[in-house]
């Protein structure tokens, strides 16, 4: 079969040891002819050093305001196969667990109705099917729905929540990340499908402070597992580690609060001074385990640079007893979330992330608005400038 477009620049990227995306696009084109035009246009971008997509564009399915990203080629006559090249976002299975039966059916759908290309996964966590036209969107949506899968978020809505594998396959997990992730996705389906916020809002869940879904940097509301009581120490295993490497230098000396030491042969931890950073547990997993009183911290406001600069999540709730709340269908966290969204709705402006709103109105106003008290865990240190706004209720 002759090639429709010559792609000398892209062909270079079929060489080398790392698996080649060019090869993947070619394989997709074998099943879904239109994708040859994608190769052609990307080759042209490689030549011109600019992208050749038109700005934005609407695409979607009936009844939803979200779930698809519209994309149109700048050169529809030259590349008719990607005149319309929309992508559809699909809520993944929590923890990204699948079986071969489902994945094969999804591959079939992508080849039958779209360009035969998929993203496993988008950065937010969605499965994405690439390269469909608006006319095909409904068919793809229904085919996916028959497999029991729904569309994900896009635009100014609740984006698709995601989580680390947590208790399914990690001994460090302090709470059931997959369960709460699925529960809150179900709870807020309407907010996810029908954009009604000032801007996007993301949830992410990590079972411990290693934060394997990078929730502290990539979600407006980050849930990071932690514990309250003492780290459990198996002194025999500590001794085994001491035979293998310099535990003093690489574990104790690196503890950020210097709260561990040896008394004779025994490792001692001053748990009141431990900030649950995970370092010692990462290094000595057979010897050390988190305590039994487990839950998570909640951090708020992380976002990328635009418009007012990047933010990391900041501590809002040091210990949320998620295991207890799970017994009440997560009532406590849902009421906190609804307070937050009401505040954001009332005081936020269009395209303002919640972190930017907090920056603009001040954390105190936000805390008052959502009904939380200020506590020292929220700050790195107290203010060092004296421009204090005393309020009426203090002047007695």
């Amino acid at each position, binding site marked *: 079969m002759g090639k429709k477009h010559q792609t000398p*620049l892209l062909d*270079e*990227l079929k060489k080398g040891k*790392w*698996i080649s995306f060019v090869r*993947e*696009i070619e394989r997709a084109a074998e*099943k879904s002819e239109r994708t040859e035009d994608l190769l052609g246009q990307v080759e042209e971008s*490689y030549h011109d*050093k*600019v992208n050749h*997509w038109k*700005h*934005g564009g609407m695409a979607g399915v009936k009844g*939803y305001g979200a779930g698809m990203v519209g*994309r149109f080629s700048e050169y529809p006559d030259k590349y008719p196969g990607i005149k319309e090249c929309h992508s559809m976002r699909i809520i*993944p*299975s929590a923890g990204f*667990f699948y*079986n*071969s039966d489902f994945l094969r059916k999804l*591959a079939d759908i*992508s*080849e039958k109705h779209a360009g*035969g*290309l998929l*993203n*496993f*996964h988008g*950065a937010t966590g969605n499965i994405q099917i690439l390269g469909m036209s608006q006319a095909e969107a409904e068919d793809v949506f229904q085919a996916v729905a028959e497999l029991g899968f*729904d569309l994900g978020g896009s635009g100014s809505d609740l984006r698709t929540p995601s989580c*680390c594998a947590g*208790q*399914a*396959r*990690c*001994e460090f997990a302090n709470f059931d990340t*997959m369960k709460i*992730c699925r529960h809150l*996705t*179900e709870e807020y*389906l309407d907010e996810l499908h029908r954009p009604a916020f000032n801007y996007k809002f993301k949830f992410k869940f990590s079972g411990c402070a*290693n*934060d*394997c879904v*990078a929730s502290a*940097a*990539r979600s407006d509301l980050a849930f990071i597992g932690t514990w309250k009581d003492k780290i459990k120490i198996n002194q025999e295993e500590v001794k085994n580690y001491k035979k293998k490497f310099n535990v003093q230098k690489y574990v104790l000396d690196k503890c*950020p609060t210097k709260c561990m030491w040896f008394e004779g042969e025994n490792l001692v931890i001053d748990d009141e001074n431990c*900030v649950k*950073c995970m370092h010692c547990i990462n290094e000595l*997993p*057979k010897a050390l385990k988190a305590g039994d009183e487990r839950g998570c911290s909640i951090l708020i406001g992380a976002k*990328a*640079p*635009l*418009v*007012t*600069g*990047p933010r990391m999540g900041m501590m809002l709730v040091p210990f949320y007893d998620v295991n207890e709340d799970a017994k009440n269908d997560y009532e406590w966290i849902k009421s906190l979330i609804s307070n937050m969204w009401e505040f954001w709705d009332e005081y936020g402006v269009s395209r303002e992330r919640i972190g930017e709103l907090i920056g603009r109105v001040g954390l105190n106003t936000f805390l008052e608005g959502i009904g939380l008290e200020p506590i020292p865990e929220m700050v790195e240190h107290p203010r060092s400038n004296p421009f204090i706004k005393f309020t009426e209720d203090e002047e007695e």
Partner: protein
Amino acid sequence: MAEEVKKKRLTDIGPHDYNEYLSPVIKNNYGKWAYHEILDPGTMVHVAESGDKLYTVRMGSPRLVSGSFVRDICDIADKYCGGHLRFTTRNNVEFLIEDEKNVEPLKKDLEKMGYNVGGIGNIVANIVHTQGWVHCHTSASDASGVVKSVMDELYEYFVEDKLPSKVRIAFACCLNMCGSVSSSDIAIVGTHRKPPRIDAERLRNLCEIPSTIAACPTNSIRPDTVDGKPGVKVNEETCVFCGSCYTVCPAMPIANAENDGLSIWVGGKVSNARTKPTFSKLAIPFIPNDPPRWPGVVNAVKTILNEYKKGAEPGERVGEWIDRIGWPRFFKITGFPFTKYHIDDFRLGETTMNYSSHARL
């Protein structure tokens, strides 16, 4: 047609029940794992309190994959894993194996098919990346091509455990920074260097002027009258070429073949282990786009990695290593020039100055 019963349209069905996809050993030991061991850079084993074992083989993926790729991994999962597999948060594929005897044959099959096994331990993990020229209109560079070029060069670090700690590399094709570039050990970010062009005619029809003005981080967009009609002008003195205005207004395109390229950032992390999460900081302000192989970017990443490997202590992430040796030394040993662009002048940027007499002389 008329007599055909109309099928009910399915909507709002929500997330699929993940329990359906958990293998028996995971279901039985959910929340009851005792410890894990990394057997080699492609394999780990999790041991449950019950004594049950679960082996995981991790495989690299280009993230953008074909249906045929999906069928390949399904065939492997059927042959060795009872059809069970998962993807990681860095878009790797993981095969979940109950019978230890299946581990080596599975890896051999993958290698025979040309797939990459690795990515566990003190390695360079898969590069979290974005859409690029393959699918996004605001891209200043291509994601997949840069990632492929860098991973080809760093391949040995994906398949062998040879670094002081794990190194996370991330890529974003514009300042929207979809993904995790703002907090990675090494980040590669698409960058423009010229202000947007304004198409006054289209702007009137296509853009909402107040939201375009509000999109600008440096207040460089002002209302303007063009031929007696409403429009905008851009203060080119203060514009930082972020492209945010183009995101909201199609009539302000900013892509530019000669002046678009990539910047390199270092020292970010999200984990809380030892030190708090930190942002990545600027190492190289600009490297021109040079497809298909981007040698400038590849060399810069290699330089950072080589110096890090030589200088860091076991367990030290890139940012922790730089904190210990100091930024002046980082620039000296990498040979990257320190320029005026490294000095933060965005809003409260002066908080990044050195307010002390501390200097490594």
